């Protein structure tokens, strides 16, 4: 909350504030120009989680970005003068950007609530007619899809050296009028009225009964993932930031994994049809994601060491060109009849699955069986892996690991906590290692293709760029070698007697409530 801010119910009239103060002090009133606030944060609340709150406050054409970092630190900068959303590089070079950029990383700031502000300024004067305290009284109204009157905001700002006068005014207002709960601030009130829950996952967790029929729970978990797909879709189409696509693809992968592992719990025709549909969506979006990853690496957001590499701009330009085309293909696919129908058809199928009244195992029994089967498949596939294995083979193993991961995440509370934690740790370690190898494989393929394209075109790349491509491939190879060295240890840990015992112990006991699936 902003220091000095007190909220009163939306029904409170600004005149009541004046009357409360005017009884005791000389108070002057001045109207303030109408303003409009845009409350900003990323889709996954990175500013909120970092203890920050950001607002673009506009009066006519002029605007100010107001950043609160901690309860008493307020930093301002001119508004970027562009429409939101914006990524950090779209903010003016300022202390606000310096604070915001590391917190939001690659995510864009979204306009989460728009507020109209009609305000008055009260000046509390002393016997010399000097201002001792400024009090801003703002009537706030949420505009947009869900218009609503917001609480009356009173901001008491004592001038330096007159802090006691400010405290007296605040006390007086709290005594005479009825303030709202102290933890509510104007930004939080606006976000809540707009339907947001700061810090909470965009798709709320589902509740599962471990003794309920497994198909019913599977439908609930899958419904959550399609909620996540639908939520990410507009951000992908508008190309707000790369993480919308990442979230969409994560949800698609999770859906495909659970569909495969729980195939016997659903009608075969539905499994076949939607396995195809989600595979199509995965294929449709894969090239764009690969290009996003490559560009993020070149922008320093990945693990690639860019030290000493110059003249990467032609490379970026080339990748950006490819990305534009890949984005157009994704947009076409998502907006096609097939892309538009997928969510609705899938939801209808899930509803039917949940309603089916057939004999079925309990949620817990099915989750434990599936985990055991997934584990056995991974161990079997890993048995033939060496540090010389082809990346395709490793990629298939990685796919199996991911499927088990979605299962363990999706049904986490159904499992016995300690074995679950241990198995997840061993699985995550193996996954990370295989992920590194796959990333390097994709990056090397991209670099080889780029090098070939640029050479064919002639003149598109300087010697520096060609050398940089070579250096990047060398560094990628070193990363690959490091990851492969680690891989043997990780496979051994995953296949060890200890992990095997933990997998066997996943089903012991457990009474459950909420499914905490990986946040979409």
């Amino acid at each position, binding site marked *: 909350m902003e220091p000095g801010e007190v909220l009163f119910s939306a029904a409170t009239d600004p005149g009541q504030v004046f009357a409360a103060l005017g009884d005791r002090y000389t108070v002057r009133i001045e109207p303030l120009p109408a303003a409009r606030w845009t409350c900003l944060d990323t889709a996954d609340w990175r500013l909120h989680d970092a203890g920050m709150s950001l607002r673009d406050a506009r009066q006519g054409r002029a605007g100010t970005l107001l950043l609160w970092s901690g309860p008493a630190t307020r930093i301002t900068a001119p508004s970027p003068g562009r429409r939101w959303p914006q990524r950090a590089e779209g903010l003016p070079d300022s202390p606000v950007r310096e604070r915001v950029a590391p917190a939001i990383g690659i995510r864009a700031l979204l306009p989460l609530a728009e507020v109209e502000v009609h305000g008055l300024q009260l*000046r509390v004067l*002393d016997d*010399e*007619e*000097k*201002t001792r305290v400024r009090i801003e009284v703002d009537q706030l109204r949420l505009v947009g899809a869900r218009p609503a009157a917001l609480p009356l905001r009173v901001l008491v700002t*004592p*001038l*330096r*050296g*007159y802090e006691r006068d400010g405290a007296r005014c605040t006390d007086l207002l709290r005594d005479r009028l009825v303030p709202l709960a102290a933890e509510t601030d104007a930004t939080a009130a606006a976000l809540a009225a707009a339907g947001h829950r700061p810090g909470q996952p965009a798709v709320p967790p589902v509740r599962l009964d471990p003794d309920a029929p497994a198909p019913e729970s599977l439908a609930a978990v899958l419904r959550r993932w399609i909620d996540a797909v639908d939520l990410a879709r507009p951000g992908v189409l508008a190309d707000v930031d790369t993480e919308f696509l990442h979230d969409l693809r994560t949800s698609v992968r999770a859906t495909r994994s659970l569909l495969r592992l729980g195939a016997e719990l659903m009608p075969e025709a539905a499994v076949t049809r939607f396995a195809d549909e989600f595979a199509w969506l995965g294929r449709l979006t894969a090239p764009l994601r690969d290009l996003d990853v490559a560009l993020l690496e070149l922008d320093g957001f990945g693990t690639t060491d860019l030290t000493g590499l110059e003249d990467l701009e032609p490379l970026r330009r080339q990748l950006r060109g490819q990305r534009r085309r890949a984005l157009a293909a994704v947009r076409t696919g998502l907006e096609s009849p097939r892309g538009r129908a997928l969510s609705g058809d899938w939801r209808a199928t899930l509803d039917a699955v949940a309603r089916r009244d057939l004999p079925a195992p309990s949620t817990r029994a099915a989750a434990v069986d599936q985990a055991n089967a997934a584990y056995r498949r991974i161990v079997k596939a890993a048995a033939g892996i060496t540090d010389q294995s082809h990346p395709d083979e490793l990629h298939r193993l990685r796919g199996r690991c991911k499927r088990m991961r979605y299962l363990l995440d999706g049904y986490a509370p159904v499992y016995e906590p300690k074995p679950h934690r241990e198995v997840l740790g061993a699985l995550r370690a193996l996954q990370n290692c295989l992920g590194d190898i796959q990333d390097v494989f994709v990056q090397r393929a991209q670099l080889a293709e780029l090098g070939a394209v640029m050479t064919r075109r002639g003149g598109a790349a300087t010697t520096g760029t060609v050398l940089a491509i070579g250096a990047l491939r060398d560094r990628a190879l070193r990363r690959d070698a490091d990851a492969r060295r680690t891989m043997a240890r990780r496979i051994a840990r995953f296949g060890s007697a200890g992990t095997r015992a933990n997998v066997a112990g996943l089903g012991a006991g457990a009474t459950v409530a909420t499914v905490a699936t990986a946040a979409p």
Partner: protein
Amino acid sequence: MKSLAVYNIKGGVGKTSTAVNLAYLAARDGHRTLLWDLDPQAAATYVFRVKPRVKGGGERIVANRKPVEAAIKGTDFEGLDLLPADFTYRHMDLMLDATKRPTERLHRILEPLAGDYDLVVLDCPPSVSLVSENVLRAADILLSPLIPTTLSVRTLDQLTEFVRSVRHRPRLLGFFSMVDRRKRLHRDLVDQLPKERDDLASTAIPAQSIIEQMAVQRAPVPHFAPQSLATRCYEQLYPEAMAGRRLDLSGP
């Protein structure tokens, strides 16, 4: 943090008006500004409607027994704070003399404020004293109002000598103040002298009743008369005063 001292050996030459108006213009430009009224007459403090006293006495600040931050008062103007005058400042020489390194005391007092302010403006009392030596040590820019008389050149020379006599040498800039263009001598000096001396600003401040109105309006001229000639002159003087940090005063 830059520091600008408005100083002259003589009184009644427009020091306080200059200090108040330039401090206001700096704050208006978005610079976090502090005006320290060092003159026990407390004229600047009066203009900003602040009570001319430092709780516990100004000597406690000088003697380092009270943090300077605790004495600062916000003015009615965004970004402009005031360190008010205190009647005990009439004995400031004695107070300073009682401290260690008496010529550096004001500089030391201001040091903790470096992160809070972009500019400190010192409104100095007229004298040549230990206070003046402190002002020279604390200031990056010494701005000196001069009445256009034949003696004004001599005053500026005396100030130059004074500045040369200290180790820390602020940039010295004189300017003509209280100029009455009906007087031929004023006209001649204001038109001619700045062309001959690079330590004289080209901007001159006219003698206008609007400036005297500051004590009635109790506000800086650019606030209550933003379109006036006086405002325009102060607006021209401000960048001249702030241009460059130090003037090399070495030499014969």
